[in-house]
């Protein structure tokens, strides 16, 4: 005979539901008792921050979509109507537009944290790969969102980026025609981009749920990169990490609010307040800042197909990262040589970003080329070789030992 599962909740209704559909047990397990390594630092809050940014983007985007018209003759004016006449429409739009940038800031910090502490290594390979897929879908969503206001940068950015696919032999041109829905960026392009821009955030949401599910199988990594061995090494997620992450979220929101209310157009481009005009090309077509390093890689290669392959390859490469890094030690804390190369990679990313914003000529082209070479060199040569050559520092026996020793040393200093 079928039997309801035993549940332990005090509220009889919750108990009744839970014994038939144990979602409360699941939530209790995953978000109340989930053991977090007690030594995680504030860099671990950026996963939660990115998740909250996704929710903010979906919520503001929903209300913007109610007022927006995805027709080339109406799109620009409907956005201005939102800015001028819709109640708090200016707030919704500025939160959404700056929210995209903040989402990328959170995700970039989250990714570099993973790189520094080796969070991609076994057994977290699938967790990491899901993260790279989330990053890719995010880039697609952000790109299509930037097209919607139908300003000059929207139109010309869309033209440049969709044209990239034409570099591929044989399939290239049909793909571009399919993306455009015609023979140039036009009304069908805008319509399908709007539909996809509405759909993809929910795909992202599903991917984030998978990402979290994969995380909760093997547990969170921590600054020492060693596994938690028991309850003495962990704290329950609630209330310890909810409060800590909560504080980090509020601090992040302060920075976010500063952009929204006091410099809402700083991260955008003035040309996007000029309606799209297929007959006038802007002097410099630049993508949003979060694409600039990849844009620099694209332009660094003198061949169109080569550039496109290098650009997509620079992200696809990240999926192979768990196998490119041959070191068994996760955290950079115990890898004195790799730690220096990590920082060089971070600087390389910034330099590439700066070069991406500059005209691709003269010194900037050279800098972009050196930066591109170094990016691939880091992942394809340095990482595999370094893992074999480097002698890591001795690892502590357990998290609690390292934490308590640290605390002990501190109290000794005070005394």
């Amino acid at each position: 005979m079928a039997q309801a599962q035993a549940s332990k909740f005090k509220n009889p209704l919750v108990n009744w539901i839970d014994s038939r559909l144990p979602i409360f047990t699941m939530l209790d397990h995953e978000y109340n008792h989930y053991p977090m390594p007690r030594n995680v630092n504030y860099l671990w809050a950026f996963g939660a921050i990115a998740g909250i940014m996704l929710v903010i983007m979906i919520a503001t985007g929903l209300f913007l979509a109610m007022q927006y018209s995805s027709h080339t003759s109406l799109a620009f004016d409907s956005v201005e109507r939102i800015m001028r006449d819709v109640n708090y429409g200016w707030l919704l739009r500025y939160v959404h537009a700056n929210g995209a940038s903040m989402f990328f800031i959170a995700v970039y910090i989250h990714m570099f944290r993973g790189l520094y502490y080796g969070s991609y290594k076994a057994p977290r390979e699938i967790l990491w790969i899901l993260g790279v897929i989330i990053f890719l879908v995010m880039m697609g969503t952000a790109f299509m969102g930037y097209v919607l206001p139908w300003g000059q940068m929207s139109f010309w950015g869309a033209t440049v980026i969709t044209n990239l696919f034409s570099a591929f032999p044989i399939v290239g041109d049909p793909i571009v025609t399919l993306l455009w829905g015609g023979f140039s960026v036009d009304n069908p392009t805008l319509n399908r981009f709007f539909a996809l821009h509405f759909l993809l955030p929910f795909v992202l949401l599903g991917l984030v749920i998978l990402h979290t599910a994969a995380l909760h199988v093997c547990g969170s990594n921590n600054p020492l990169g060693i596994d938690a061995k028991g309850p003495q090494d962990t704290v329950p997620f609630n209330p310890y990490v909810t409060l800590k992450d909560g504080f980090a979220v509020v601090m992040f929101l302060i920075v976010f609010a500063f952009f929204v209310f006091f410099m809402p157009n700083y991260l955008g481009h003035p040309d996007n307040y000029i309606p799209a005009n297929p007959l006038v090309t802007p002097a410099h077509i630049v993508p949003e800042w979060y694409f600039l390093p990849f844009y620099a890689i694209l332009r660094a290669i003198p061949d169109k197909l080569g550039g496109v392959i290098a650009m997509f390859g620079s992200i696809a490469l990240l999926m192979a990262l768990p196998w490119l890094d041959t070191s068994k030690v996760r955290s950079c804390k115990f890898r004195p040589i790799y730690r220096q190369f990590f920082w060089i990679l971070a600087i390389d990313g910034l330099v590439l970003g700066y070069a991406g914003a500059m005209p691709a000529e003269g010194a900037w082209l050279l800098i972009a080329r050196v930066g591109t070479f170094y990016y691939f060199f880091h992942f394809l040569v340095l990482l595999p070789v370094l893992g074999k050559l480097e002698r890591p520092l001795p690892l502590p026996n357990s998290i609690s030992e390292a934490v308590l020793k640290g605390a002990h040393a501190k109290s000794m200093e005070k005394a």
Partner: protein
Amino acid sequence: MRALKTAILSAALALGLAGAAQASEAVHLPKQSWPHAGMFGTIDKAAAQRGFQIYKEVCSACHSMRLVPIRTLAGIGFKDDELKALAAGYEVQGGPNDAGEMFMRPAIPADRFPSPFANEQAARAANNGALPPDLSLIAKARVGGEDYLHAFLTGFEEAPAGVNLMPGMNYNKYFPGHQVGMPNILQPDGVTYADGTKATVEQQARDVSTFLTFVAEPHHDARKQMGVKVILFLLVLAGLMYASKRKLWSTLH
């Protein structure tokens, strides 16, 4: 660590040098101090009203402001009856009437400012082939914003020796490429201000730049005022969160 420091230094140096080279190519815009700048800045309504007078008497002969309803001016202190009277001074197309014909009617505050030309071709035909840009968003659509507008409006001068102006073009030291179809339109006392302010070119440029900043962003003041409240609230919340977190984590041994 040495290798790291060298890398950081050389990267910073490379960026700094290249940045300086980049800056020297661009035209330097003189920075103005605006009452609406900063976290607590608000639009100077008197200046914006004078700026509107210039728009109405000078700019609007060639430039449209097609995204801006006349009622927007309530934001710089126009009263309801003033708006109605102002709107009635413009004619817009209405209809069709019962006979199926379009007709001209006086505007109401909900109408947008009528454009001086019917379409782009008409505007170009009347302006030596140049298209006077729409002014609804001009303060947000130019690098430098209101500083650029002010510099542009005061930046007309004789073309330096060796510069060959194309027929009908004018020299402006801040306009990209320097050759612009628009003539030096602001003249000393070119308008007579209703509030008695002396209408120097500098004053007019400031006033019209203030006005264009307002029409590009009619909710400018509300945005900044809300921002101050939001950030104050978040700071208090952050303090509470941090104190609770400290207290909770201190119970861990």
